[in-house]
């Protein structure tokens, strides 16, 4: 499947390949040439079942793939510049600065022995030239924007004192505090209660649209996709099966696998 490199995409993943090196030194390919682009100021969903390589692709955008993963080919063009071309340095330049990542299971993703405020201020000051007091204020404002009640008190608490939903809001604040251009969301609502999932998604959509961010939502929840995203990339077994606008995908899916997915999610029946 070929994808035209549209002018003005913020991120283009081009024929990205890689796999895990086994004990025999052989690389088992799990990403077999992934290509898609993210249009500026849009929310693009990457959907697919477990093991389709969607999370792996997302983590690769920041070069934080799990240990043992080896890239075997492809490019990752961020704002026209190949992130792989400059070695690890080019990732360091964009990490948390121009591209931010929201992990699933925020409680585990935060450091258990530092207060939430401490971690947020560290991230803030790593990217913006601010004094401690100023950074504190920026973090406080950000916690208010992600609607954490009583943020001043919450800043002094540790991750284990947060519920899953509140921790995910902290994670979101951490991703946004450096004012990135691209926000990658790796299954941000997996593992949360359904009502809280909806709250978090509402908040996400609001934050993204209000600040003109480009965002990439990794998910397997087609219901969420239908409500929130403009573009959809369907992945399976390390390949892209279909790229479409949200409307096209739900009204006229071209790929057979997409149709199966839609059928399985029972969204088509509702139509």
């Amino acid at each position, binding site marked *: 499947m070929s994808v035209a490199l549209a002018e003005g995409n913020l991120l283009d993943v081009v024929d990205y390949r890689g796999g895990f090196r086994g004990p025999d030194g052989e690389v088992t390919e799990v990403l077999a040439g992934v290509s898609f682009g993210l249009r500026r100021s849009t929310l693009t969903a990457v959907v697919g079942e477990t093991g389709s390589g969607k999370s792996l692709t997302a983590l690769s955008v920041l070069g*934080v793939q799990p240990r043992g993963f080896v890239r075997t080919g492809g490019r990752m063009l961020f704002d026209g510049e190949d992130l792989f071309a400059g070695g690890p340095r080019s990732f360091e330049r964009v990490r948390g600065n121009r591209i931010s990542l929201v992990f699933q*299971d925020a409680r585990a993703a935060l450091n*258990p022995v530092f207060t939430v405020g401490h971690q947020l201020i560290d991230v803030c000051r790593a*990217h913006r030239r601010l004094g401690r007091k100023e950074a504190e204020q920026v973090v406080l404002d950000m916690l208010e924007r992600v609607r954490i009640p009583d943020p001043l008190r919450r800043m002094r608490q540790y991750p284990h004192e947060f519920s899953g939903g509140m921790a995910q809001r902290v*994670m979101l604040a951490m991703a946004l505090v450096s004012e990135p251009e691209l926000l990658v969301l790796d299954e941000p609502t997996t593992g949360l209660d359904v009502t809280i999932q909806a709250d978090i998604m509402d908040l996400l959509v609001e934050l993204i649209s209000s600040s003109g961010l480009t965002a990439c939502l990794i998910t397997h929840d087609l219901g969420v996709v239908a409500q929130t995203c403009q573009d959809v990339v369907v992945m399976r077994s390390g390949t892209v099966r279909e790229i479409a606008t949200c409307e096209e995908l739900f009204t006229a899916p071209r790929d057979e696998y997409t149709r199966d997915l839609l059928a399985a999610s029972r969204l088509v029946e509702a139509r």
Partner: protein
Amino acid sequence: MSALFGRSRSVLSRLVGALVVVLGVVTLTFFLARVVSPDPTNLYVSPQADQATRDQVRAMMGLDKPVLEQYVTYLGQLVRGDLGTSFSTGQPVRDDLLSRLPATLELATYSLIIGTLVGVVVGIVGAVRRGGILDHTGRFVTVAGLALPQFFVGLMLLWIFFVVLGIAPGPVGRLPVGLVDPPQTTGFVVIDALLSGQWAVAGAALQQLALPLITLAFAIFAPIARTVRTAMLEALDADYVRTATAMGLPQRTIHYRYALKNVLLPVLTMLAGVIGFAFSGAVLVEGVFAWPGIGQYALDAIQQSDFAAIQGFVLYAAVLYVVVYLLLDLLYARVDPRVRL
């Protein structure tokens, strides 16, 4: 307010628990001593002595009374701070222990500082440069430290540096024969000598100290280095380190603050055990170097079946471990916010 109350109450319950442990150790050693040698009079009177003499000795030692009564008497003495009298030195066990404590403290303190520092550095470097030449070297030395018994390390050092090379003094204790102890202020000979301006004495004391210090520090370094390396590797693989990396924090911050504070927890636990080991006189190290500390005293007491001395030593070690672990619990709660006392 209620949290404060709850905290002091739980500290109190820990203290009670600690007392129970000490009482258990005291009881166990008392009865073990009676089982091992129900009639220790044989150790003190000649085999040809007549029954009257034996009875006299038994009465003097309180051995003619029922065991339970002896036990109660013993506990009563302990409460008054009386650990009994050593049969081999003829001194109260408490005085014996106190006079030997400085030697143990001096050796243990220096060894703990050096062993821990080197262990932490080697462990961290190994984890950060995983698989590199420094890591392999560090692991090799660590395994050696874990596998080789301390008396063997001590004897090898003596053989190389004293017998073969002749650059280290022989194992004759804290000072070479002929030198007089400096006036005692801290009990640490090196420091006391420096305080009183006796440079030659301080130098000689340092030379005496070198080999036992290396031996003990080596034994302390190995488990610390291993624990630090394992914990650091785990921390570097943890989700929060991945988060910090993705958020673009500098690698220095990630390694030496985000990961290291998590590493502190298992290291504290290991450190508590090592501190107990070193301060209870590292019996084998003191034995090899004739170091006049608590460990050497315990070794002598065991060889001579000096029960009051053995019981005194065991009590000292038990109290030491209990206190160290109690402090560890308090410290743990400060480092790990998830731990509530």
